[in-house]
């Protein structure tokens, strides 16, 4: 875990060399959980709305590529959160992602199951890391970025 902590510190230093990181850093949790919210909304609307609405949903989520944007926003938010003091929230985001993969729990194939299990495992490993003495966790949960 100490080696992982060192890797994260060096990764953060590398990220800080990019100006875009400074612009996006205050919004890392918004990117992370906002992306999950959009992905869940996509699954929920397709599950509850009738087939006649699917064209409208397709325009919102595919033509305006809201789903693809949310997919990349999740990964950007996840990497930025991983190297910051807010890393303690990332396991929960990974578990919520596993839930979103399985939702609405119909026609669950091996593909979805393996994906969800991977995210659950990664979330648990990260949860144990954040509870260790090596994690750079900000107890107050406030932003820790200093430039």
């Amino acid at each position, binding site marked *: 875990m100490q080696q992982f902590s060192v890797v994260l510190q060096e990764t953060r230093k590398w990220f800080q060399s990019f100006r875009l990181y400074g612009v996006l850093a205050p919004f890392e949790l918004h990117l992370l959980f906002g992306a999950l919210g959009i992905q869940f909304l996509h699954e929920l609307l397709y599950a509850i709305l009738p087939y006649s609405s699917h064209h409208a949903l397709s325009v919102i989520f595919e033509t305006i590529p809201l789903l693809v944007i949310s997919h990349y926003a999740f990964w950007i938010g996840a990497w930025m959160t991983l190297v910051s003091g807010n890393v*303690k*929230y990332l396991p*929960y985001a990974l578990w919520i992602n596993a839930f979103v993969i399985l939702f609405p729990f119909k026609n669950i194939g091996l593909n979805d199951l393996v994906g969800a299990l991977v995210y659950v495992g990664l979330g648990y490993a990260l*949860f*144990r890391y*954040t*509870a*260790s003495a090596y994690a750079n*966790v900000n*107890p107050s*949960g406030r932003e820790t970025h200093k430039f």
Partner: protein
Amino acid sequence: MSFFDKLKSGVAEAGNKAKIAVEVNRLKMQNSSKQKEIDQEYQHIGKMVFDSLERESMCSPEQLQPMVDRIVQLQDEIQLNLHQINAIADEKKCTCGHTVPVAARFCPECGHQFIEIEKQEGDV
């Protein structure tokens, strides 16, 4: 208060509760890891005592002292985490073991009165 104001305050309240839950879970996980380390140290001590008895000799306290010190240190850290959890969650523990809100003056389980030390104005 308008609907959006209520929504904003509700979201802020949910966010605060989520932060508290995340921090409490992290401290509980820390305690769980420390407890496992204590159990490993107990096993280690037990193995050393068994090996020494098998050789018909007694292991000296100096051999066991580092492990004992480590166990005591971990127990202190666990207690500190428990106090932190109670502070974050605005709770306190009664002598009977029941958890009550920090502002409570009596325990609803056993009736124990929490003595509050009131700060007088002008006290040094």
